[in-house]
Structures are given as C-alpha cells and as structure tokens.
C-alpha cells in the first residue's frame, strides 16, 4: 500500500501548488502532403491531421480524469510549412492558405494551438522560405490558433543576419496588423537559434524532419511545487536546496512520463520525449521568479539572480533526466515575463530589466520570452535584440529564442493585457541607441569555433 503521506503530497501538489501537465503535443509530419498544387496540398494536410489528431483532445481529457491530473493544453506541431509550401509556391498562391488550413484543423480537433508555420533559415533561404516569412504577419492576423517560428541561427551554421534583419520587420508588422487585438500576432511568433525539433511548447513548436511520422511529446510544469518544497527548508544551504529541487523535479517528470506513455499507448502513436521544463503561468504561486525569491533574493533581477537561476535550471534537469526514458525539447526553466506573476511584479518595481533578462537566458531555457517593448521600437532594434540573443545560443550550444511584442501606441511603464495563460506585460525599456548600421550590413556571423567538434 502506498503511504498516506505520499498520496496527500501528490494531491496537495495538484490542488494547491498548481502542478499540471502543461501540454500533450502531437507532432505530425506533413512531408507526404506536398503537392505542386497548394489547394491539393492543403486538402491532404487537413485529411491527415484530422485523421491523426481526431482523438487527441478526448484522450487527453480521459487521462486527466483517470489520473486526476490536469492537462492544460492539447496541441499539434507540424513539419515547418516552408518545406511543404515550397513545392507549390510558384503557382501564385500565398502560403497563408496553409495557415488557414492549420486553423481549420485546430477548430476541427479542438486543440489549443497548432505550431509549425515555420521556416529554418539558419544558414540561408531556400525556395519557399522567403515567401513564408513574408506571409507570417498576415497569417497570424487571419488565424487565432496558429503559431509561427523561424530559426535564424545555429552553433553549426552561425547566424543568418539577413534573416535577423528581416525578422525585426516581421515582428513589428505582426504586431501592427493585430494592434486592435492586444498586438497578439507578435505573441505567436518565436525567433530561434538552435531550435529543437521536438519541442512541445508553443509558440515555438514544430515537427522536425528527423522525427517519427507522428509522435507524442509532453511538457510538464510545476514552479509552484518547487517553491512550496523550498519553503520547507528556510535554513538549508545551496547544496541542500539543489537536492530538494532535484527530488521535486524527479516527481514532476515521472508524472509527465506516465501521461506521455499512456497517451502514446491509447493513441497508438510512438512516444517522443518529455520536456523537463518549469513553465510558469500568471496564476498566483506558479512563478519561476518566486522560486528565485524563495532562495533568497529580495526581488527577481537583483544581483545573484543569474546564479540562482543557473542552479535551479541545472537541478531541474538532473532530477528530471532520471525520471524519463527520453528527454528533449527545450528542457529548462522558462522565464516568460508576461506569463509569470513574479516577473511582472519585478519589472514593475524596477528590479528586472531587459539586460538582466538577457543575462539570465545564458543559463536557462529559452530566451527573451513574452517581453513587451515600446510601440515605437524600430525594427532594427528588434533585430539587434534577436542578434544578441542568438549569439548567446550559438556560442553556448544551446537554444535561445526571442518573443517580444512591440505594444503599438504604448510607452514604457504602460501595461499590455493579453488575458488567459498569456497574462499581461509591462512595457519594458529598450536601449534608445541605434543598431541600424550593424543590422543593415546583412551577411552571416560565421559559426563559432565550438562548432568544429569533429
């Protein structure tokens, strides 16, 4: 018999500490849906995705009920659409038709988001990439549940500065096109360096070409659980704190592994990976910033934040890796500002700046995430923010990403409300000095020495 203490601990984690499975994401390859006629291709995509994901939401709900564990999101990721649309791009169709097909699938299956309106251009643009990227603002404005990502750099290839320059403009345009809807377009686009191909988290999820035809990936959450565990050890030293985090991460991840294997069994689809992530939500008590403050910082962003976060991120991985047969995706602590109550407070009280966030991304997953910047920020400045972040990822052989939202018509100090899981974001200060000359040069940042490992 299980011990009563263990049973009650699990129930408490779920009831009071916001423990949940953040997402079950079904990755679906669309390589067999390529057609020279875009309309035919879209029909094939719709048919395949509806067939594969028909029972995804229902299965998620059944598992939720059986194990008593909330599964917040059910999502689908697909092969980067630029690869699929390339064959039909010469026919005069706009790739937006593909986004609309993905939207129709989201509505038909009842999933929260479909990710993969994406292009991989870390070295250069190939056929279809340019068209797809140019169409992102329109695609995101005309759909509500489709997410987009673009990989502009990697440790192996360096950074494609032409793509960096382009993405600054695309992000601005995505925001402008949705200015009457909380600039939400920009919240659905992520610019990556070293993008993982099996990431279950939005907005950056896509299904890489080396993956199974269809697979199930799971993302766990649980900042609230980690914080509650630390609260019990107010006088522990940092070695002991790291141990507590490891043990907690182990338990959280085991639950993800259980749900993932069960979902894969029920859906008859291979199990891909568990993404070991601490993903915060705007709910009180579900914050990564609050964990850092529990460790002993007056406010997130104070000196020492990067060190605490490095320890936290590492301990989560060490605890999680033994709990799961396959770990992948982004795996690390997330620090999305608008989705984390503690981060929002820290920005509002002036302790957390964009520069500090950038430093933090060097030691955690994923990057500058859900950060609202002034509406008049020039595209070149956004590009330069992307370049800085990509450089951190490229040199450290890790994934970094940028998801910033220029709040059209708003200035530093105001707040952009998204609602729901996306929360609300205080408009943060960006450097007023120009990076235009650097961005306009174009070209490529050569791959760093650490790429030459053979």
């Amino acid at each position, binding site marked *: *018999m*299980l*011990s*009563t*203490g*263990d*049973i*009650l*601990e*699990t*129930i408490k984690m779920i*009831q009071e500490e916001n423990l949940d499975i953040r997402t079950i994401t079904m990755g679906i390859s669309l390589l067999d849906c390529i057609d020279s006629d875009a309309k035919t291709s879209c029909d094939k995509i719709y048919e395949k995705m509806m067939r594969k994901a028909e029972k995804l939401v229902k299965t998620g709900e*059944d598992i939720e*009920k*059986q*194990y*008593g*564990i909330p599964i917040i999101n059910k999502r689908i990721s697909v092969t980067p659409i630029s690869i699929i649309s390339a064959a039909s791009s010469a026919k005069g169709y706009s790739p937006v038709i593909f986004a609309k097909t993905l939207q129709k699938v989201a509505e038909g299956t009842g999933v929260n988001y479909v990710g993969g309106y994406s292009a991989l251009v870390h070295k250069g643009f190939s056929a279809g990439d340019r068209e797809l990227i140019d169409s992102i603002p329109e695609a995101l404005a005309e759909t509500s549940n489709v997410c987009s990502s673009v990989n502009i750099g990697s440790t192996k290839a360096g950074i494609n500065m032409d793509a960096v320059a382009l993405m600054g403009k695309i992000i601005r345009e995505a925001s402008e096109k949705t200015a009457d809807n909380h600039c939400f377009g920009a919240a659905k686009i992520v610019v990556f360096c070293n993008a993982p191909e099996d990431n279950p988290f939005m907005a950056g999820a896509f299904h890489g070409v080396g993956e199974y035809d269809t697979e199930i990936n799971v993302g766990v959450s649980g900042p609230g659980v980690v914080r509650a565990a630390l609260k019990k050890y107010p006088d522990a030293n940092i070695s002991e704190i790291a141990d507590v985090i490891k043990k907690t991460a182990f*338990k959280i991840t*085991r*639950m993800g*592994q*259980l749900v993932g294997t069960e979902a894969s069994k029920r859906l008859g689809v291979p199990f891909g990976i568990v993404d070991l992530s601490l993903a915060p939500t705007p709910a009180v008590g579900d914050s990564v910033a609050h964990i850092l403050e529990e460790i002993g910082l007056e406010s997130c962003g104070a000196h020492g934040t990067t060190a605490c976060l490095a320890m936290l991120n590492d301990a989560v991985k060490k605890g999680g890796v033994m709990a799961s047969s396959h770990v992948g995706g982004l795996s690390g602590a997330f620090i999305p500002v608008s989705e984390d109550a503690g981060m929002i407070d820290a920005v509002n009280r002036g302790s957390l700046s964009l520069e500090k966030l950038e430093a933090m991304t060097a030691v955690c997953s994923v990057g500058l995430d859900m950060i609202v910047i002034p509406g008049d920020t020039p595209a070149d400045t956004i590009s330069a923010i992307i370049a800085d972040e990509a450089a951190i990822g490229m040199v450290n052989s890790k994934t970094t990403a940028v998801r910033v939202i220029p709040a059209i018509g708003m200035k530093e100090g105001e707040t952009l409300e998204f609602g729901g899981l996306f929360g609300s974001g205080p408009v943060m200060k960006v450097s007023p000095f120009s990076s235009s000359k650097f961005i306009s040069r174009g070209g490529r940042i050569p791959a760093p020495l650490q790429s030459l490992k053979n």
Partner: protein
Amino acid sequence: MRAVVAVIGKDTVGILAKVSGICAEYKANVMDVTQTIMQDLFAMTMLIDISKLSIDYSDFADRLKAAGTDMGLQIHVMHEDIFNSMHKI
C-alpha cells in the same frame, strides 16, 4: 485496475461507512484502508479494485466527489499508477 480514494476534511461520524457504501453500490472492492489525522485534518486513503466497476470510471469519480461535497469533505479518486510513478523508483 486499482485506484486510490483519498478523503480529506473535518472528521465526522460515518465517513468510512458512506464512502465504502458508495464503493459497494458500484462494485468497487475495497482492498485496504488507512486513516490518520494530519495537521488537524482527517485523512483517509483507500485502495480499491475497480476492474468490475458497474458504472463508468469518471461517473464513479464524480459520484464520490459529490458525496464528499455533501459532507464538507474533499474526495479524490485517482489511478494508483500516478502515485507509484511519483513516489517509487
């Protein structure tokens, strides 16, 4: 298939009788019961065999939850695998 029924709340007369009564009504076999007082709260955990359950599992869970609400208690029904995977290596 086995599930864990966890009952948490203020101690009153007849909790065990009520919960086991519902289990019997829907053919869930009670295999083990532990009860304890934790931090002023009554906590009872039951291991039940639900392989011969006469109604749908989720309806059964809802039924117990509703009975708990009537008595001012929280009742959770969860598959035992979640506890095994979290607390055993």
